[in-house]
């Protein structure tokens, strides 16, 4: 009786029953490629893990060149379960980038960006950039040697871009060099600017998915079954998330994320230094590009090429918009497969070469 009256009170004010009715009706298409529908939700779940563990780390982390390394050391040695929370934050970040790539390529190959879903794709592309920025800014925060040099190189790459490069570099570094000022800035980006931006884009992205529903590949358009979102799909989602928690805990326990040595602005870069795996393919490409191509700096050309590709990513749904255009369809498939192969091969090469 009491609960019923509370529910009624809330319902009159929030009209939960209307929402529940809508949720009841929500359905997910069921066909041979349904498996790919789970990767967006998985990415979102891992993002939630990042938010929770990130807030926990904030309780002890100190964002300054003098204290950052020591505070992370304190977290992993003194704080109860500190090693676990920190390792989960690092592992979950990496898994999130992996599931995001899987999600992106599956959407690309299944052509889920066809009208009217262009803006869903564009907001997703923004989220990809945001997540990469999360990774790059978060990597510096423990203020260890690897992070210090990765940030030096990464910001230097931004600085290579003609005209705008130098101001961007100074903006990112908070000066001409990577110093404590850079750390404070990256901390601000990582815990305030990026989370706020990500929240907006996630809201848009998810709202649009709700609005348009799941995209059904052309092949199955007239031949698919449906599954209730509540509870059938969400239960399946849940199983994936519980598995993810298990995988994260296992990874964190078996392969705790290393802290390394404290950054030293006057020590040489350690031998065999490499960026995180999701930057490896770019790193390897830049290593192989000749110093001069047609009288231009090879490095500058390589970096500009990556920028152009990033730009192309955003306009994919505006070039390929006609489901009946078979030739364009084929070209896009070839480009996608080539990009995927390029990333995979270069990452492996980058991983094995000394």
């Amino acid at each position, binding site marked *: 009786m009491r609960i019923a009256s509370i529910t009624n009170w809330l319902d009159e004010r929030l009209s939960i029953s209307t929402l529940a009715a809508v949720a009841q009706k929500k359905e997910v298409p069921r066909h041979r490629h349904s498996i790919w529908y789970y990767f967006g939700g998985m990415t979102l779940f891992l993002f939630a893990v990042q938010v929770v563990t990130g807030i926990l780390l904030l309780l002890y982390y100190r964002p300054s060149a003098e204290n950052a390394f020591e505070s992370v050391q304190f977290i992993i040695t003194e704080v*109860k379960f500190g090693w676990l929370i920190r390792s989960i934050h690092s592992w979950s970040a990496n898994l999130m980038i992996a599931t995001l790539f899987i999600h992106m390529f599956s959407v690309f190959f299944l052509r889920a960006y066809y009208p009217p879903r262009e803006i869903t794709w564009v907001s997703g592309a923004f989220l990809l950039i945001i997540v990469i920025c999360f990774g790059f800014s978060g990597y510096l925060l423990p203020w260890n040697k690897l992070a210090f040099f990765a940030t030096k190189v990464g910001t230097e790459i931004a600085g290579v871009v003609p005209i705008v490069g130098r101001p961007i570099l100074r903006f990112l570094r908070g000066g001409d060099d990577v110093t404590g000022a850079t750390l404070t800035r990256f901390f601000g980006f990582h815990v305030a600017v990026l989370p706020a931006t990500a929240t907006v884009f996630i809201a848009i992205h998810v709202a649009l998915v709700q609005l348009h529903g799941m995209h059904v590949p052309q092949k199955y358009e007239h031949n698919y079954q449906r599954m209730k979102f509540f509870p059938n799909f969400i239960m399946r989602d849940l199983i994936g998330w519980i598995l993810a928690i298990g995988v994260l805990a296992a990874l964190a326990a078996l392969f705790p994320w290393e802290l390394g040595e404290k950054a030293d602005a006057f020590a040489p870069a350690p031998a065999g230094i490499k960026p995180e795996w999701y930057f490896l393919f770019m790193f390897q490409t830049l290593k192989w590009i000749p110093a001069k191509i047609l009288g231009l700096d090879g490095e500058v050309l390589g970096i500009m090429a990556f920028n152009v590709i990033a730009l192309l990513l955003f306009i994919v749904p505006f070039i390929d918009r006609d489901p009946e255009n078979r030739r364009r369809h084929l070209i896009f498939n070839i480009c996608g497969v080539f990009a995927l192969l390029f990333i995979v091969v270069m990452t492996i090469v980058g991983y094995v070469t000394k």
Partner: protein
Amino acid sequence: MNPDTRKTANRNSGLPESPPRRSFLDYLLGASALATLGAIVYPIFKFMSPPQIVESAENSVVAAKLSEVPPNSGKIFKFGNKPGILVHTAPGEFKAFSAVCTHLECIVQYRDDTKQIWCACHNGQYNLSGKNIGGPPPRPLEEYKVNTRGDDVVVTRG
């Protein structure tokens, strides 16, 4: 098949009735959900409670050089991770106390006009034996021993 006929059918076939089996599964599912939740929440709560930091058990510290504290003056010094106050009284005696006010933990200071130890936060007053003589402080300040060793003024915990 309606539930009643199913019950009868189960009974007749010698199988256990389905409701208890279902409630057992529900119980199992609920228990594992709780266990999972516990395994997530417990580390989070433990993480949030700050670890004990081992204090360096310093028993003795050089509080000041003789020249730093002329008669009728005081100086705050670091005693472990807590502040202490060294007072050189007008007659030339050295006194040392904990500088943490017993009222609400502000840091006290020596006043050369009233020749008292004074807390600026709520006007607490202590005499030069550390006794609370005015304002809100409920207890005297903890007193330390003072020795001079050459040019050093050494404070030792009692």
